[in-house]
């Protein structure tokens, strides 16, 4: 079905070679997992298949790519679009329309299909992807998982032979991943060819039948999923990959440190305008000081709202933070709290890394700034423009500016979404280091590996309320795994038999319409 022959490619704005002499032959109906460290070229391979390279991302390309009968590198993008459907990483930026129905219709409209046919295809795709309840809604009111499913429906409505997914779960919680898994299973049953580039491997074990491991723009290993599983998690760690089994985790960070005082929160209540139920409703809460607290919960459970209120960004939130007898209202909290946003680009303003740190200091002190940069391994880049750095480096610049402004509480919003093993470990090292300096850290995350890597305490939110607040000791670990759902504790094949059943029912319904 897909024939990639001796392809080398380098993007026009970079000197580095992204792919060197990659050949890949993929059969019809195969499901292939592309994995490897960030920058290994797996995204580039997906772009070769859907034609974005060389038509959208320009650069120097050698070799040929064929999908079915189509020479992708020569055909126009809209011709490729009939055969290859793509789902991307960021649900926020892959929607062209503002409401869901138009979005699902979008591809078909572009193909100029008759209106009645489009109507039928929408109904069918919505049924298959379980998004009927989301039809005719505003895109901006959906959660990340819902958006990703609508994106899948939109691609599905075009009924392509080949589906390409580029890190589709970066911004998703466990429940949403589970839903996406169903979608992939459906496509697999329909005999579609699937290519998926991912960091999180655990949910793909029974979807993909072949694994292509890439490193530095080359295919290193190309084997069946069975062989790949047999390698074992230790070998995968050596390859820089995230583990296949989440249940093997067992670190007990919580018990190893002594108690270092507490922070008390009271009356953290917040309700968005035009919303009926409060997004956050916490009367009293005691959290450890100087520790790394993971804030967990599904998308929309109030994690971000909590973080925003904690940092004092929501002025209407009347909550009070009490630390060692000192009471702090929103305005004072703004001075002592800092949030490292999910998209760090929002918080980098100046033209060099050093300036960025100096800007945060009350009294610009270059020597101190250099010291901070050094501690975060940023010294070699101190003259560079922050925006020209890699994602992880940008994040460290943001951390550096937080340290420079002497913030005591630092909140991280999904610091490891879409990061590979090595970068995730790097982030966790930085977090531990900050914690040793006595900062109180709060981390909003879906990343179980990160939690086990460095967090010492768990705060579990649901519907704006605290449903769990416990240290990550032996008991805590168990509880955490339980709250992260079935996929962690059991061998998920069992659980998925059940899912398979409900999903077959839906498939039958979809075929009827």
């Amino acid at each position, binding site marked *: 079905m897909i024939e990639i022959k001796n392809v080398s490619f380098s993007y026009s704005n970079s000197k580095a070679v992204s792919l060197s002499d990659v050949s890949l032959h993929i059969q019809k109906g195969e499901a292939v997992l592309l994995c490897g460290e960030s920058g290994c070229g797996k995204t580039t391979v997906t772009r070769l298949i859907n034609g974005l390279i060389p*038509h959208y991302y320009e650069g120097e390309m050698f070799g040929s790519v064929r999908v079915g009968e189509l020479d992708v590198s020569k055909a126009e993008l809209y011709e490729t679009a009939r055969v*290859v459907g793509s789902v991307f990483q960021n649900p926020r*930026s892959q929607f*062209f329309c503002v409401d869901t129905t138009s979005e699902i219709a*979008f591809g*078909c*409209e572009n*193909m100029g299909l008759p209106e009645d046919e489009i109507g039928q295809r929408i109904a069918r795709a919505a049924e298959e992807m379980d998004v009927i309840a989301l039809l005719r809604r505003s895109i901006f009111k959906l959660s990340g998982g819902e958006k990703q499913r609508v994106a899948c429906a939109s691609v599905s409505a075009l009924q392509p032979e080949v589906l390409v997914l580029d890190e589709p779960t970066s911004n998703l919680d466990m429940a949403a991943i589970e839903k996406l898994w169903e979608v992939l299973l459906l496509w697999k049953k329909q005999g579609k060819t699937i290519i998926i580039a991912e960091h999180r491997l655990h949910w793909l074990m029974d979807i993909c039948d072949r694994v292509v491991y890439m490193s530095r723009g080359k295919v290193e290993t190309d084997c069946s999923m069975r062989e790949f599983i047999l390698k074992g998690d230790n070998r995968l760690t050596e390859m820089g990959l995230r583990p296949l089994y989440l249940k093997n985790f067992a670190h007990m960070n919580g018990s190893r440190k002594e108690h270092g005082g507490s922070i008390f929160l009271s009356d953290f209540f917040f309700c968005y305008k035009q919303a009926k139920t409060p997004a956050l409703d916490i009367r009293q809460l005691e959290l450890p000081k100087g520790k790394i607290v993971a804030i967990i919960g599904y998308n929309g459970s109030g994690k971000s709202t909590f973080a925003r209120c904690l*940092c004092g*960004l929501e002025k209407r939130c009347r909550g009070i933070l009490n630390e060692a007898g000192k009471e702090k209202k929103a305005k004072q909290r703004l001075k002592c709290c800092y949030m490292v946003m999910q998209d760090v680009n929002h918080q980098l303003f100046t033209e060099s890394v050093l300036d960025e740190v100096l800007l945060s200091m009350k009294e610009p002190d270059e020597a101190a700034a250099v010291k901070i940069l050094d501690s975060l391994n940023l010294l070699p880049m101190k003259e560079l423009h922050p925006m020209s750095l890699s994602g992880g480096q940008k994040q460290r610049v943001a951390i550096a500016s937080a340290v420079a402004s002497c913030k005591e509480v630092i909140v991280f919003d999904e610091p490891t979404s879409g990061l590979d093993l090595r970068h995730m470990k790097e982030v966790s090292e930085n977090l531990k280091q900050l914690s040793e300096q006595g900062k109180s850290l709060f981390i909003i995350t879906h990343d179980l590996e990160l939690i086990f890597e460095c967090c010492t305490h768990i705060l579990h939110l649901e519907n704006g309320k605290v449903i769990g607040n416990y240290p990550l000791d032996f008991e805590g670990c168990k509880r955490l795994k339980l709250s992260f759902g079935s996929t962690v504790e059991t061998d998920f094949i069992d659980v998925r038999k059940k899912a398979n059943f409900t999903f077959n029912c839906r498939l039958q319904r979809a075929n009827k319409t």
Partner: protein
Amino acid sequence: MRQSILQSDVDARGLVIDPRTKLLLLITMAVFVLGSVGIAQLSFINPVLCLIPFCLLLLSRRIKVAVVSLLIYALIYLVTMLVMPHTTGLINFLLLGTSVVVMRLLPGILTGMYVLSSTTVSEFTAAMQRMHITEKLTIPLSVMFRFFPTVADEFSSINDAMLMRGVSFGGGNVGKMLEYRLVPLMTCSVKIGEELSAAALTRGLGGSVRRTNVCRIGFHLADAVVITLCAAPYAGLLLSRCGVL
């Protein structure tokens, strides 16, 4: 999340009229109220035209906006008619300025608000297509409407970031403040824009086939009423030019 400028929750919007009717209404407002092409004999027509957006806002369940702006409009109207003739000098001047701006701009702006808040993007593009407007305009237009909320979101995130850094207003000169706001805004917008284009292109945007459109638009009773009301001043104008009136 932020409400989009263009309506996107299809089910929550009262009375629906055709986008083309809305466009006619906008142009009529622009000509007769904003541009004040007046007809001396038919001076009652302008206030009647001005009432249309209020009614439409009410019918599309934007009650609060409609009532508040109607009150403002009525207040300014009364002040202009009753109080202003008795004032002189600076006060008169200020009142005058305000009244001109409010009486001329407010109805137009309200109509604009109504049109934007009651139209979905696909209705809009469908209407543009029916009027045979080229894709060179409709594609950028739909991207633009899709992008407004994103820009607004980015803008507020950047504001938050500045607050936390303590570099909002007052901290430095105007140029720096502008720079700190615009630079991240531009970089983020360009990045999101690139991803957006990529996603649109892989779903076949810009193909050589003529696009179809799933949303159904058409004229109904409400359209007829609005069209008649809009046609009245043109007819009056025509008649007065011909010397009938």
